């Protein structure tokens, strides 16, 4: 039973998911629409519960067992609770039941901590900072790895130079044809390689999906298959 029910669910829903793309009949399309709009959303809603539960349990355990960097788990949990309270009760822009805007008396200064203000002033700069670190790692990695050791590496190096230089408007304005050459690299050789990869990935995905739907591949059952 433990194996058969999940296998049956996967078979039924795998087949049901494919049918609407093959049969355009109204009844099939309406049924698929209903399934997507109602059933799928309910299933996805459970993932939120699962996600929040999982993050709380993971960090609670980390703090309890005092694992490496356990102090940071407090930051995660406190941030989770505070942002959830402000988001749920503070409204989008300080218009909820929880007051998230204070005007200091005798001054015009307003202190806001509604979810949009927190997002714009904490999440956005933090996220951008994390991503900008990539530039440093990429420069260091490019300096160490991009060596014209053989013909293939030289072609790669040359292409990278052209695409990088073409992304600089100053160079493109001095050498207008460079931009078009860069476009050609992306449009022809890049597309050819990507299409080849795409076909391979698509065929592999179809084969794997079929194996899972038909119950041939059972690794996803987590050891009970």
């Amino acid at each position, binding site marked *: 039973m433990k194996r058969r029910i999940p296998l049956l669910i996967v078979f039924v829903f795998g087949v049901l998911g494919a049918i609407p793309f093959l049969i355009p009949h109204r009844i099939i399309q309406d049924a698929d629409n209903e399934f*997507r709009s109602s059933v799928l*959303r309910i299933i996805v809603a459970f993932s939120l519960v699962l996600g929040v539960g999982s993050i709380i349990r993971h960090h609670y355990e980390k703090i309890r067992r005092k694992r490496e960097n356990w102090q940071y788990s407090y930051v995660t949990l406190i941030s989770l609770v505070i942002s959830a309270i402000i988001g749920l009760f503070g409204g989008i822009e300080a218009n909820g039941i929880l007051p998230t805007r204070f005007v200091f008396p005798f001054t015009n200064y307003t202190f806001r901590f509604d979810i949009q203000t927190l997002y714009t002033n904490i999440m956005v700069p933090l996220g951008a900072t994390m991503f900008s670190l990539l530039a440093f790692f990429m*420069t260091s990695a490019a*300096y160490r790895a991009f060596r014209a050791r053989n013909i293939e590496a030289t072609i790669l190096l040359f292409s990278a130079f052209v695409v990088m230089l073409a992304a600089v408007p100053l160079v*493109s304005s001095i050498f207008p044809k460079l931009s078009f050459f860069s476009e050609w690299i992306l449009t022809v050789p890049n*597309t050819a390689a990507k299409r080849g990869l795409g076909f391979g990935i698509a065929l592999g995905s179809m084969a794997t999906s079929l194996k899972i739907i038909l119950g041939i591949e059972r690794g996803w059952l987590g050891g009970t298959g």
Partner: protein
Amino acid sequence: MKFFEKLMKIDRRIIYLILALVVIVPFLRPFMIHPKAMPPVENLYNYIDSIPPDKALVISVDYTPDTEPELQPMTIALLRHAFARRIKVGVLTLGVLGLGLAENALTQVANEFNQRATTREDSIIYGRDYVFWGWQTPALTVILGMGERISRVFSVDYYGNKTETLPMMQKIKNYNNVGIVVSVSASATPLWYITYGQTSFGIKVGIASTAVQAADMYPYLNSGQATGLLSGMKGGAEYEELVQTRLGITGRRRATEAMAAQTSAHFTIIAFIIIGNIGFFALRRRKK
């Protein structure tokens, strides 16, 4: 010998420091570089420009704060274009973290236009000229559901209004009333619109992506499945240039401003690669 060895082994902290300087200095002493729009950018611009009055532009804000510097200028430029041409705009996100970014972009551009407006007709009014549908999940449900009925997918908008009660939504029912969906994304979400939305409903799809992601989008541009492509900071700057030169819409151009820093950073990376290769070839020749 030692000199060439040193060329090949520059300390990474020196590389970081030099890169930081060449990125920061252009922001302190900015110089504007005006890019010329490439065909993929111009195609998207022209298509949006030709959207008939009874159809809307849909912008899918599918990025998160980490790629905000690269992608937010594109969303802003697209909104400026649509508002200037009086094209109705519907905005949604497929990821919850895009909500705040979409809200910021809409507020900024609507304020820009409303500050210049002298009459109610000139103004950009929520519900009449644009709607922020917000976020729904899963993406498959949203993309396919919008082909049937948008107000069924987004029964209330981001601000809690009933979507069907908004004036703009009386005419914008599903993809039949949408000119094009532009997915501004740092991931593969534009391809979901092509795979599901375009295959099932024939919707036109435009792509605005990070430079890193753009290479994956070219096959769809070549096949005609993507109407146009804004690629990275340069794509954003090119679109900003088109909006300003062709429509006369002014405003802060963040992508164009960042071109100076990107230019110097690219030159630095190229210089480091050349230095590394000089050392590599010199040592190889000596070993022979």
